[in-house]
């Protein structure tokens, strides 16, 4: 499989930043109208039930804020492009040990481990800098590689 050029830490980092911006924007599109409605009803009624509604509105937002990025990444990585939008822009993609597309299970595992590991410590994302095959913790567990999108 390893006739490919690895993606490079900088490209992976930039892809992650672009994806974070995209997902944050999408979450905001949903969050702002709900927040706005909550604030509007609070101002109009000024009672506790309006406040409770505004508080309850936070639950789906928080759920969406966690599930949204995971679903986005899983669907994109297991798609024929094998990459998120950030990775497509950086011309990199994720492949398994055989150099083929990740299975849906592989993509789910990779994404969950990735977001779980950053919750343990974001320094774990520096792992690819020290790894011969530029694998992060989630790449090592799922046995995948992030490579340039063209054979050199």
């Amino acid at each position, binding site marked *: 499989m390893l006739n490919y050029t690895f993606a490079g830490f*900088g*490209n992976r980092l*930039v892809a992650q930043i672009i994806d974070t911006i995209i997902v944050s924007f999408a979450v905001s599109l949903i969050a702002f109208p709900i927040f706005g409605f909550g604030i509007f009803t609070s101002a109009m009624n000024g009672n506790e039930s309006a406040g409770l509604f505004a508080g309850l509105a936070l639950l789906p937002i928080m759920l969406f804020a966690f599930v949204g990025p995971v679903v986005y990444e899983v669907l994109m990585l297991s798609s024929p492009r094998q990459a998120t939008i950030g990775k497509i822009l950086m011309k990199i993609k994720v492949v398994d040990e055989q150099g083929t597309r990740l299975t849906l299970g592989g993509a789910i595992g990779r994404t969950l481990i990735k977001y779980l590991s*950053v*919750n343990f410590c974001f320094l774990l994302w*520096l792992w690819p800098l020290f790894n011969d095959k530029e694998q992060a913790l989630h790449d090592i567990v799922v046995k995948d590689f992030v490579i*340039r999108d063209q054979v050199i």
Partner: protein
Amino acid sequence: MRIKKTVIAITIVAITCLYYFFNPAEFHFGLPCLFKGITSWDCWGCGGQRAFHQLLHGNFREAFQLNALVFPVTLILAYVAVSDLFMQELPSYKFLKKRPVQISTIIAVASFTILRNVLE
């Protein structure tokens, strides 16, 4: 790769401004540490954001006390930023991938994590 360099440059400026003007000790941003939440021990990264804020203000002693790893991590990130911005198209960071460097890093991070919790 103009996109890459632009995103890296904007990110560096944004993060530096964020951590310079906002003290994470007062403004809680970022994710809570699961390691600390589960074990109640400080992980190798705990205090890193507050330490970076102090580092940007030239308070090296405070930065060291909050998280001593802020110095090597900042150096590594600066090295990555300079390499990706100004040097090669695809830096390989071969120096960091050498076996002695890998082993030293693991020993340093593990020792720091144990010591900061034992000596606390």
